[in-house]
């Protein structure tokens, strides 16, 4: 199947970024959101990124116009009927995602590939109970989607091998680096990166070292680009905490994934990192 039209559901930062990745490769993109204001904002975002590309002489004005013309803003699910592939990028709520895939099952062609950009919900669970679970796969981009090269292609319990291969090739065709993952909590990255935050929090809690010390050590001794606390502040401490809790719950409370009380208190106090001006570091200074 040659892919011409891609549907993207949810026009937030991830959805808009994914739409841009697809449009840059010449696909027609149907960017869907029920909220017109979100769609308007997504268009501004696309224009701002492409304008920067023009300023940096990466693309011409003409190419910018052509890319933007490939992105169609839509608000009704039925408008995705002709899509070869649909990528869902709505907030991380199981009920919401299940409802979307259930609707898509009735709207899309039977051979259309249905992908979810979830970072924390089981693909098997999203696909569970649907009429064609074999065509539902995880397709996990990293933020910001136009920049980060990785896509985790996640095989749910009932995903077919044929569809896994198709999704893998699609990721390559988008210029991304795909990796194949079997559906497990946190997939690869969010699972293996847990100790970077969690053990740093444990070390902090045990007063082995302080926030700035740990960040300095991980950068200078470990060669990491950002320390675990700087990174939590950037990601959002609430987001990081939610991911940890979800991995912990889904692994049936295995001790390795136990969340940190320090992180919980940061969230409870509203110190969520850069976005609130204060997290492990103070950004108001």
């Amino acid at each position, binding site marked *: 199947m040659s892919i011409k039209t891609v549907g993207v559901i949810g026009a937030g930062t991830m959805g808009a970024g994914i739409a841009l990745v697809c449009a840059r490769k010449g696909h027609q993109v149907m960017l869907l959101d029920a909220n017109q204001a979100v769609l308007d904002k997504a268009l501004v975002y696309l224009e701002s990124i492409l304008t920067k590309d023009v300023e940096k002489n990466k693309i011409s004005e003409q190419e910018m116009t052509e890319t933007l013309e490939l992105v169609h803003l839509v608000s009704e699910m039925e408008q995705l009927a002709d899509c070869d592939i649909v990528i869902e990028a709505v907030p991380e709520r199981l009920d919401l995602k299940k409802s979307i895939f259930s609707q898509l099952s009735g709207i899309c062609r039977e051979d259309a590939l249905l992908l979810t950009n979830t970072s924390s919900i089981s693909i098997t669970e999203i696909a569970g109970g649907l009429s064609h679970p074999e065509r539902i796969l995880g397709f996990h981009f*990293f933020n910001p989607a136009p920049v*980060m*090269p*990785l896509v*985790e292609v996640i095989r749910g319990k009932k995903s077919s091998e044929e569809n896994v291969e198709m999704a893998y090739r699609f990721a390559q065709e988008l210029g991304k*680096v795909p*990796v*194949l*993952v*079997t559906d*497990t909590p946190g*997939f*690869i*990255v969010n*699972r*293996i*990166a*847990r*100790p*970077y935050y*969690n*053990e*740093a929090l*444990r*070390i902090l809690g*045990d*007063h*082995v*070292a302080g926030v700035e*010390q*740990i960040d*300095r*050590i*991980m950068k*200078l*001794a*470990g*060669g*990491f*680009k950002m320390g*675990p606390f700087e990174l939590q502040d950037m990601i959002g401490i609430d987001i990081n905490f939610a991911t940890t809790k979800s991995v912990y719950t889904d692994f049936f409370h*295995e*001790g*390795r994934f*136990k969340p940190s009380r320090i992180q919980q208190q940061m969230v409870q106090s509203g110190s969520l990192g850069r976005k609130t001006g204060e997290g492990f570091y103070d950004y108001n200074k």
Partner: protein
Amino acid sequence: MTTTNKAVLLVGTSPLYAELNQLMVERGYQVLTLAEAMAEPELVELAVEVNSVDMQAKKRQVRELDDLLPPNVPIITTSLAITATEVASWTQHPERVCGFGTLVPLVERELIEIAPALQTELNTIQATEGFFQSLGKETETVNDEVGLVFPRILTLIINEAAFTLMEKTATATDIDIAMKKGTNYPYGPLEWADRVGLDEIFAISRGLQRDLAEERYRTAPLLRKLVLAGRVGVRSGQGFYTYEEKVGVEA
């Protein structure tokens, strides 16, 4: 003790031995083996002990150093798999023992962590900091616990990657690609483990499990078995990868 000789006694079997030896020679130190130091113990200004896998050998060597050297000579010991406080407790002069932790390759380590034992006196800490700074490294002094900060966090990342591989969630190659491309790690955790040595990582993991006694520090069975099979990484030609062909192992 003279300032012209700058003689340092270096003992141990960790991969750090060769790299520390080379770095010290480059920085103008005279590096003595235990046999050389026994002939002229008064030459030794500082002793460095780097055993991190065999705790019996570590205990034996630290006690040898403690018996051999005058009580004012600092003994700097790796506290990767055991606390500096416990190492110091083996000696007659625990105040001259100070822990440190780092992993090979040293050329990539801009900073070395130092962890004084509860018994360590200030002079010893200052001598330890001065020593590593003279090797061109920055230092950070942290509280004494197994694995310090960087080796402990890296060990847990590698351990989780080993669980992920063992469970066939993804291939070794895909796990490493994912961590480099998805979150900008300098190396994939499995290739990183192969460079550091799986035996060193296993020793830290076991030390954390022993001292902190929590399920969170449980070693991935695959990591344990690779070490028992002698597949400790690049050094042995095989670890998570095989180095003749550099392909991922089927876990």
